[in-house]
């Protein structure tokens, strides 16, 4: 198991958003987290990336156990150096070109020299089909292109896992395809991914594992084929519109 979290809880004011989440992701797995809006999917990913501090929770990453409520800055940074996050709103660095967005972390956080970083950066942009746009600033790119740059930024550092939080939700419908196809090719190459998305068809065809969340709990999780044909829970079947159940 590459990554496991146990009993992740998080509340905002009087609202219990995560009520004790357990999940695990294997190396090479593309896990899709599905669930209605407000289920707590974003909060879960943010907790798993320490953009929020959970109220409780345990992280087991490559066999190493961490108390998620008491991670040191150094431990979090070290974890970030091995993971990547793709945001719904891209969050590109607005004062950097496409290539600089990709190389910034390599140079500043990892200490690669500029040449090495640019080589890796160009390879990453190549994979998302945007080498030709390397000198464009974010505002000169379409939403779909910005998200592909964000994916290039994520893959450039060879992360052990990439988290995606609704990577296509902020895009015009005609631009979602280019992003999904990049993600599909990453999955084909065996990249480990944890993806929150509402693209059911994408989930069905790309993922190995479905985690279905609602009201701050994991209702059910299992292999994609089973979840789409014969889930254990009525609620899962209803959400995935499994017929004949």
């Amino acid at each position, binding site marked *: 198991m590459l990554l496991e979290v146990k009993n992740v809880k998080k509340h905002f004011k009087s609202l219990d958003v995560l009520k004790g989440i357990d999940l695990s992701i294997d190396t090479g797995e593309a896990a899709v987290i599905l669930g209605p809006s407000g289920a707590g999917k974003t909060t879960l990913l943010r907790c798993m990336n320490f953009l929020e501090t959970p109220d409780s929770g345990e992280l087991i990453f490559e066999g190493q156990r961490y108390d998620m409520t008491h991670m040191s*800055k150094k431990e979090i*940074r070290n974890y970030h150096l091995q993971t990547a996050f793709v945001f719904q709103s891209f969050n590109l660095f*607005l004062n950097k070109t496409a290539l600089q967005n990709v190389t910034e972390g390599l140079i500043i956080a990892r200490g690669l020299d500029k040449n090495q970083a640019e080589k890796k950066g160009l390879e990453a942009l190549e994979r998302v089909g945007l080498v030709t746009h390397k000198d464009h600033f974010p505002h000169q790119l379409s939403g779909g292109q910005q998200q592909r740059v964000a994916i290039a930024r994520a893959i450039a550092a060879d992360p052990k896992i990439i988290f995606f939080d609704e990577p296509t939700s902020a895009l015009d419908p005609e631009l979602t395809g280019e992003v999904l196809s990049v993600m599909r090719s990453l999955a084909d190459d065996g990249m480990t991914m944890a993806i929150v998305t509402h693209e059911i068809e994408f989930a069905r065809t790309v993922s190995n594992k479905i985690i279905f969340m609602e009201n701050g709990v994991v209702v059910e999780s299992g292999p994609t084929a089973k979840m789409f044909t014969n889930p254990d829970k009525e609620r899962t079947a209803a959400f995935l519109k499994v017929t004949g159940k």
Partner: protein
Amino acid sequence: MSSNWLTLFIDSFPKILIPGLTRTIPLTVISFSIAMVIAVLTAMAQYARIPILSQIIRFYIWVFRGTPLLVQLFIVFYGLPRVGILIDPFPAAVIVFSLNEGAYDSETVRAALESVPIGQMEAGYCVGMTYMQIMRRILLPQAMRTAFPSLSNSLIAMVKSTSLAANITVTEMFMTTQRIVARTYEPLLLYLEVGLIYLIFSTLLTFLQGWGEKRLGAYMEKEA
């Protein structure tokens, strides 16, 4: 008469300009540079909401923005010697102008920092950058670009405010002009002349501002 005026104008021009170059400009450049350091550091501390320190900074800004510059100059130059602190005119002026300008610019920089979309901070964390790395490489450059027009305006305003330093015996352009007036009894001509030199300084800075905005603007959206 008019040929006298012309002669006086020409004779006094270098006499006024030289203290402009040796006093007014250095006073402005040094004070503004220190003010920038104060502004950026205090804005960062406020942005990060560092407990106690933020309160101290708020107090500093409140005091310096809420009292006249002239009063601040008098307190430091004429007042502090009463408690044994004697500061020469020029450094006294630098201290007051820096602190006063820093207080205003701090708020400008803080507001600009707060206008930078926060998602970039989170993206920076997720690629393993530290808070200070993100601040220095991503947030501050964008904030300074946003703050640039407003900071340039305060720089231009500051060139003019340095004339107040005449009141604490700094022999900058305005004081020099006053002395020539006292000798020649030509207030209209000479005050117009010093006004013209201030105007030249401000105009040059306005050009620099336009040039700077263009250079900094590469990554900004047209409408922003």
